[in-house]
């Protein structure tokens, strides 16, 4: 993960063997492959624009890697059939890539990479070229493929949401350097440099557990405390798995503050919070609060700040609508 221009794609190409680094080594499964050509590395690359071979049919695209390995034609048929069914692209096998939609192209590119059963699969911003509506379903497809096939995926993205949703470990890159490597929570809760901090931003991001539902909303418990929040129903395409553990985001501008407790409103979540810090952000202020061990961040105007006379240590009421909670997905 990292901002654009951080060298993420270049790193991916170095791993794939497209670039040979002038210093350093590339190891895959303990083997030093630095000087190996790409075809000897057992890595499969899914570039950002998918790079389907335009002169070959979908079937020929998917089977390309098998044919180069000299797999027998009946086995090719069999394996292409299996992966196509899994990715729901069996009906596309005779088509040419240029006739496919973005989402279809992505699945064909994934099938082409997966069918050779590589040790490592390199995904270069796989959702960047998709419509917003397709992004989420593409992410859950990647998650389920990963769960089933157990390959190592190196997934490049500049989208913090995508990184958190999918990654076991995140490497944060900027200016050609990896600034931090760790589990998503580690990166988010313990950014080791101001670059990382700036990128993770001032969003409210929590790990949470679904504990029930009430009057059309679902009830979440924010971790590590047991703070309960009400959220709008989860979109159907999100597969919640069995744990019910999710990540949620609340934008600071969606959180309203008051000095006195508000009465029951459509802003469903009301909490008593202790102000920890006030940070000047130009025309607005960022108020950092603590709610039962959960850190909550809210933007308020300079005028409101003066009027409410908020200062660190104060007790305030923070509240936000159930619809302000964005559920990112299962972890």
């Amino acid at each position, binding site marked *: 993960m990292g901002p654009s221009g951080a060298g993420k794609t270049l790193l991916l190409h170095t791993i794939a063997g497209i670039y040979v680094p002038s210093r350093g080594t590339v190891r895959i499964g303990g083997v030093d492959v630095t000087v190996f050509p790409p075809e000897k590395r057992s890595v499969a*690359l899914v*570039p950002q624009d998918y*790079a389907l071979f335009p002169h070959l049919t979908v079937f020929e695209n998917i089977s390309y890697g098998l044919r180069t390995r000299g797999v027998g034609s009946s086995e090719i048929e069999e394996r292409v059939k299996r992966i196509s069914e899994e990715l729901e692209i069996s009906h596309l096998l005779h088509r040419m890539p240029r006739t496919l939609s973005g989402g279809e192209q992505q699945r064909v590119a994934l099938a082409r990479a997966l069918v050779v059963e590589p040790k490592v699969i390199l995904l270069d911003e796989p959702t960047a070229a998709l419509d917003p509506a397709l992004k989420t379903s593409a992410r859950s497809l990647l998650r389920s493929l990963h769960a089933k096939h157990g390959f190592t995926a190196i997934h490049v993205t500049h989208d913090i949401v995508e990184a958190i949703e999918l990654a076991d470990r995140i490497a944060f890159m900027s200016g050609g350097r990896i600034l931090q490597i760790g589990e998503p929570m580690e990166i988010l809760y313990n950014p080791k440099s101001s670059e990382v901090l700036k990128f993770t931003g001032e969003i409210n991001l929590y790990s949470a557990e679904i504990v029930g539902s009430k009057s059309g909303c679902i009830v979440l418990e924010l971790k590590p405390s047991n703070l309960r929040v009400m959220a709008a129903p989860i979109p159907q395409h999100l597969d919640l798995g069995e744990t019910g553990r999710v990540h949620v985001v609340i934008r600071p501008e969606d959180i309203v503050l008051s000095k006195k407790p508000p009465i029951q409103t459509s802003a469903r979540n009301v909490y008593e919070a202790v102000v920890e810090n006030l940070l000047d952000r130009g025309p607005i202020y960022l108020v950092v609060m603590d709610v039962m061990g959960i850190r909550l961040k809210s933007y308020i105007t300079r005028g409101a700040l003066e009027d409410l006379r908020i200062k660190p240590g104060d007790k305030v009421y923070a509240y936000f609508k159930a619809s302000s909670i964005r559920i990112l997905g299962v972890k």
Partner: protein
Amino acid sequence: MLFILIPLIVLHIATNYFLTYKLVQAEIVLRAFITTFTAASASTIILAILGIPLSYILARREFRGKSIVESIIDIPLVIPHAVVGILILVAYSSRTSIGNILSNLGLIVEDNFWGIVFVMVYVSAPLLVDSVKDGFKSVDPMLEYVARTLGAGPYRTFFTISLPMAWRSVVTGIILSWARAVSEVGALLIVAYYPKTINILIIEWFNTFGLEYAKSLTVPLLVICIVLFACIRYLSRRA
């Protein structure tokens, strides 16, 4: 535009097609056609074998002096045809040291089939290399990288991905260089008057028998060239 078109129409009207038909069957004419087309085909094949890999390298790799290499390849485009003839003779005739080695390999240049081929390769090389290079440049390198990660070696990648995707430019380049080879006469007059190519026969007949005979000889050649030209237009239109 009319200036170019009028001669074609006038030639069509003014040609004695009966004479053309008879002439094409004459042995000396047939042999000139065969010489021309075999030499043009041989030179094009040599160029394709050497030029297509070179074009690929020029399209894909960056190296010091690349633009100098590209310039040298394009030089024959601007050299006057008679000068090309002199250049070939000076460098490769059997009296020179290089020519000596060549003639030991059976590649004699003066008044020989191989002299014709040498001239043709020299004049048509830029056309083939430039066209094929543009073709390879239009192939997204990422497609090649992906093929490589899928297990294809560099040669397999070239033959299954790069070449099939650039085929239109390759065919266009081959036709252009073949047509350029057939067109040449100035350099051939110097390097290899014999075996007679069709262009030389036209000039000879024009000088000995006059316009009527020379005219009739040009028609089949012109038809072939215009058909090839139509192929190029068709290919470039579809691309």
